[in-house]
């Protein structure tokens, strides 16, 4: 679950947290594009270093590192698959270039993970929900998103209570072979699902009672407005894109193995 730890939000007030989520998302997309663009180690390393000042400014270093640790397994997997494929396709030779290439692919994956991690770590779900509401996304989806996030801790607690209740009736979740263990979860899943359905019904009643569907033109209590910081981020993002494209087209990038 440690990968999800990096995605969990903390309510901190930092300049990064206050940035408009839409601008942050644009940044993530730009980082995405730049990462895909480059297949070489050095530029990818630069892209990897780029968000680090943001991470420190937002004070989310610990959680960010945790998310990277969570991604480490998958990263290692990517590295070895790449290495193995080049090994087998080049008549069982291992070159420095192949190692560097695999490292680059791994780093590309890490850059993607870290960008998303920084985004989710510095954006509160309500900000995210607001951003969704204020873009052209239909309200139903934004609502579904925020409601889901709202109930995640509730459902988690309920799952724990249900497990406790069934354990108190002698259910032993850890015992038995793989098939028995899966069957053991039926007394936990069914009450959870039934409860979720009942909850949805009650929520629907409450929504109806508070004028859901009264008008197509729904208004919003809050408005996301762009501030100086957001424009600064936009400028940085555009800068990254422009520089990336320029470097990609015009600047030959050396590989480390050339220096060996």
């Amino acid at each position, binding site marked *: 679950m440690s990968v999800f730890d990096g995605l969990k939000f903390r309510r901190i007030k930092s300049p990064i947290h206050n940035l408009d989520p839409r601008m942050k998302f644009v940044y993530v997309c730009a980082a995405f594009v730049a990462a895909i663009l480059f297949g070489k180690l050095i530029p990818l390393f630069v892209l990897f270093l780029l968000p680090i000042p943001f991470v420190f400014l937002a004070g989310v270093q610990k959680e960010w590192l945790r998310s990277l640790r969570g991604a480490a397994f998958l990263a290692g997997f990517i590295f070895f698959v790449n290495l193995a494929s080049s090994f087998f396709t080049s008549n069982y030779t291992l070159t420095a270039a192949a190692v560097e290439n695999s490292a680059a692919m791994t780093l590309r994956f890490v850059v993607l993970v870290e960008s998303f991690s920084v985004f989710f770590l510095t954006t*509160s*779900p*309500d900000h995210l*929900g607001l951003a969704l509401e204020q873009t052209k996304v239909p309200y139903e989806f934004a*609502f579904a998103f*925020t*409601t889901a*996030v*709202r109930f995640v*801790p*509730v459902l988690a607690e309920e799952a724990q209570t249900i497990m406790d209740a069934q354990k108190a009736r002698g259910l032993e979740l850890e015992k038995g072979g793989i098939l028995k263990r899966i069957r053991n979860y039926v007394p936990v899943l069914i009450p959870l699902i039934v409860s979720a359905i009942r*909850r949805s019904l*009650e*929520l*629907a*009643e*409450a*929504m*109806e*009672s*508070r*004028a*859901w*569907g*009264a*008008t197509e*033109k*729904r*208004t*919003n*209590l*809050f*408005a996301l407005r762009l501030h100086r910081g957001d424009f600064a981020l936009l400028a940085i993002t555009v800068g990254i894109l422009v520089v990336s494209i320029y470097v990609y087209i015009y600047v030959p990038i050396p590989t480390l193995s050339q220096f060996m």
Partner: protein
Amino acid sequence: MTIIETKNLTYTYPGGTTPSINNVSIKVQKGEFILITGPSGCGKTTLCRCLNGLIPHFYQGELKGHITVTGIDTTKHKTHELAKNVGLVFQNPENQLFALSIEKDVAFGLENLGMAREEMQERVEWALKLTDIYDLRERSPHEVSGGQQQRVAIAAVLAMQPEVIVLDEPTSFLDPLSAEKIFEVIHELNKELGITVVLVEHRLDLTAKYADHIIIMDEGEVVFDGNPREILSTEETRLIGVGIPKATFLYHMLKKEGVNLGEVTPLSSEDLTIILQEALKTSDRG
């Protein structure tokens, strides 16, 4: 002025074989605080759902008879139209709050109605202050206690400024102290703002003193409808299984033993204390 009127209201849930409410005829005057009570399954919740249009629009099923709330025939208007006039607060605090911050939750109904932002912000602040949760407005619903969550639900309904607020066992999941706080808030809304209150409750010891009249239901029908002091004096009420306040019960027991305690039935421990103090003073002198 009659603000709620039902005539021979009968409703059967889809797939049901017997009606959940049968021939219910009640009248509520504007500004009244009425209490509906009765054993589990007597139809109180069904009646509540009729008052804001969830029945018949959300639940379908078969609704017979007439019902008018704030002058509107609920069968002919959608639930969202009725929402402006009648608010409904449900039993489970957690399942009425969907937003990630309390102020957004209170604004939910107003956003649905397409209200302008400035007006909405004023209304939200007003509702939060009336229910004494203004300081909690930026918190997430999950972080606050059950009693506070119910106050958010009340604020959310209040923000739409309905003429009637219906509350279906709002304190079921709350401890007695939080429950008292909720009843105080509701009582103030009724007294200060003139909002008609329809409260469904079991806890008569905490609520009977606020009610203008009490409706007792049993097996889908209205069996008593009248003045609280009268209703809580009858033997039948106890036999139906309604939990009359202990103070009232003690009063009746003493009266049966021939003690003269005056003619006014107490509805709360304060009432009874005064009655007993009087009786003991006169006995002393006599």
